[in-house]
């Protein structure tokens, strides 16, 4: 069965995770990454105060107290621990989370992202997004490469509100995975049904092939 775009992205991101990594998965596509971790021993953190999220719970195991940052019921691993919100964000800001996987709306050519304000909507929610952008050791952002009207989310400069001046390490889309260096965009890995030239053409920005 062919994977959906979202699953292609999630699976590609899962490749980046290493044994022993502590990982925070944002809502949306990042949540799907958990499906593709396989045998790797990674520790999933949730900013509401949990290290060691387990597999999705069965109906009879649901506990409204035990949820992730997306407010979904979760189970825990045997090595899990709970802590309060201040400690949890200390863990995030203090560079103790190896990888944060976040959704994004735009990424500029330096790797600065906009992932919290919704276009044409009042800005009334930010949650833990900016803390994760600022604090995780490595930030991977996940998104389909184009908006519904076909414009690329990889842009010369952000049109939406920035999530912080910290630059992300990687942008994984359904066509390719990108990294950034001094304003140069590297198409590190092209696995979708577009060639390097087609990608460059559609994005409208110079890309570099590694």
């Amino acid at each position: 069965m062919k994977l959906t775009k979202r699953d292609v992205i999630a699976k590609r991101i899962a490749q980046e995770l290493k044994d022993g990594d502590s990982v925070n998965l944002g809502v949306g596509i990042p949540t799907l990454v958990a499906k593709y971790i396989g045998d790797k021993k990674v520790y999933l953190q949730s900013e509401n105060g949990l290290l060691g999220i387990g597999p999705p719970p069965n109906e009879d195991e649901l506990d409204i107290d035990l949820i992730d940052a997306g407010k979904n019921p979760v189970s825990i691993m045997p090595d899990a621990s709970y802590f309060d919100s201040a400690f949890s964000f200390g863990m995030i800001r203090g560079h103790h989370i190896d990888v944060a996987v976040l959704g994004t709306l735009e990424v500029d050519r330096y790797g600065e992202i906009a992932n919290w304000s919704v276009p044409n909507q009042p800005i009334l929610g930010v949650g833990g997004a900016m803390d994760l952008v600022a604090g995780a050791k490595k930030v991977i952002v996940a998104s389909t490469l184009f908006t519904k009207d076909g414009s690329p989310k990889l842009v010369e400069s952000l049109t939406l509100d920035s999530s912080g001046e910290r630059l992300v390490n990687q942008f994984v889309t359904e066509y390719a995975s990108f990294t950034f260096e001094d304003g140069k965009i590297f198409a590190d890995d092209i696995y979708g049904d577009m060639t390097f030239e087609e990608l460059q053409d559609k994005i409208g920005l110079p890309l570099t092939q590694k």
Partner: protein
Amino acid sequence: MEKLKTVDELEPLFKDRMRLLVGGFGISGTPLTVLHALPGFKAGDYEVVSNNLGDYGKGLHKVFEAGKIAKAIGSFFTINKEAVTAWSKGELAIDLLPQGTLAEAIRCGGAGIGGFYTPTAVGTKLAEGKEVREIDGVRYLFEKAIKGDLALIKAAKADKAGNLIYHTTARNFNPVMATAAATVIAEVDEIVEIGELRPEEIITPHIYVDYVVKSKYVKKGDDYVEVN
């Protein structure tokens, strides 16, 4: 147990325009019994510090619906559609803070720290008008500590002295809020004898807790239901 009260006995503590610190993340760790009494109390015009404004029909959402909230300080109100509408109409003031900044500001408020420098939100709209300072080559944003008049928190167990422990992720903002308000009301599922909580496992020492209210809600799967 002297600290144990019914929620109605606590009505005199609530005064107009007070700043309330309200624990919980979603419904997890939310003091539902106390919050659901607020629409019936005389006081209002509260300034509420909480991650968001409850879930639909539950927790702070009921207090908001009753027109008791003048201002909300938190990190995520997008899911509270009526709050967004009220904000657009100028009926509700909102101060938006990143969730980690919110948690840290409350912790600092409780720990006697006046303010702190966080790397979060530097270079964003949420940094507008705020001081940026470079410390050892990193740019940080200055944030002031947050304190409250009343904290409404939820714990799993209180012993008869008022020491608290929390259940799973229902801990969230509750322990820091317990330290940061002049008066603290803890809603709990269970009250146990002194000595039943080990001194190493206590998260909130009793001196932080002024009043204890027994919760009227019990968990039933992924919901809380009211009992008598």
